[in-house]
């Protein structure tokens, strides 16, 4: 084998591995569902804000958003596994492991800051804090996935930074949450579905 053949072989191997190693088992439909769940969560939050006082409001807030998060994660996981099965691939690949490891720090920060904001009763800062943590998580995971994921992460990060200073008071914080976790996810889900299938 001469150098030219070796170079050609290496190039092909790298192309195949880079394409194969990208995490592409995300489901566009899952983004649309997550966005819809977030909008429903915002609706429920609006209702309890009108109906419930003080501590009950905080507890309701926690219950609503833990439920939204749990259902969103579950359906995302289920649809991603389904997509992998349809493609004849294993879901738990090295690419998947890299993505999971990459998102953990951002998610951890979002959880810690949210709990602190709850104890300080700063509920209106929480949406922006979620955007910042979630955006950081997606930006990190996006290094092992498609370009659209990196863009989405960056949009969440920038929105979170803006939101913390401009939309951390009622009722703007709830509208901000509806846009960043509701509308953004639905739009992102539609883009992914169009480009990568469902």
């Amino acid at each position: 084998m001469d150098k030219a053949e070796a170079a050609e072989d290496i190039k092909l191997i790298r192309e195949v591995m880079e394409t194969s190693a990208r995490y592409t088992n995300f489901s566009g439909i899952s983004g649309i569902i997550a966005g819809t769940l977030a909008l429903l969560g915002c609706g429920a939050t609006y209702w309890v804000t009108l109906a419930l006082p003080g501590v009950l409001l905080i507890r309701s807030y926690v219950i609503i958003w833990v439920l939204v998060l749990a259902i969103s994660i579950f359906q995302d996981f289920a649809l991603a596994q389904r997509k992998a099965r349809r493609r004849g691939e294993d879901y738990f690949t090295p690419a998947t492991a890299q993505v999971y490891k990459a998102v953990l720090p951002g998610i951890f920060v979002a959880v810690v800051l949210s709990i602190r904001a709850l104890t300080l009763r700063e509920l209106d800062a929480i949406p922006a804090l979620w955007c910042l943590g979630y955006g950081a998580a997606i930006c990190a995971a996006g290094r092992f996935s498609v370009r659209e994921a990196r863009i989405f992460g960056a949009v969440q990060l920038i929105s979170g930074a803006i939101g913390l200073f401009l939309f951390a008071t009622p009722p703007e914080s709830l509208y901000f949450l509806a846009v960043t976790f509701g509308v953004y996810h639905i739009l992102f889900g539609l883009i992914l579905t169009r480009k990568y299938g469902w």
Partner: protein
Amino acid sequence: MAHLAAVNEADFLALRKLLDLSDGNLSVHTTVLESKGYIECDKSFVGRKPRTTYRITPSGRRAFEEYVAALEGILRGSVDPTGR
């Protein structure tokens, strides 16, 4: 082997689509790799449809990595491309 090294496991149809090979052509390659112990083959059923899945073995991964290292050696000039 490059694809299996990245994803660990893939089924026959996914590999055929990725490599754009005919059934017979792909079968020849997988048979050779399996005979060398570089990949394992698992045959199962999904409902009534047969499914053949290939998984890279530890020795297969080592052989692949050694092959890539050899290619890089040729490019660096540290390995004689004629094999001498």
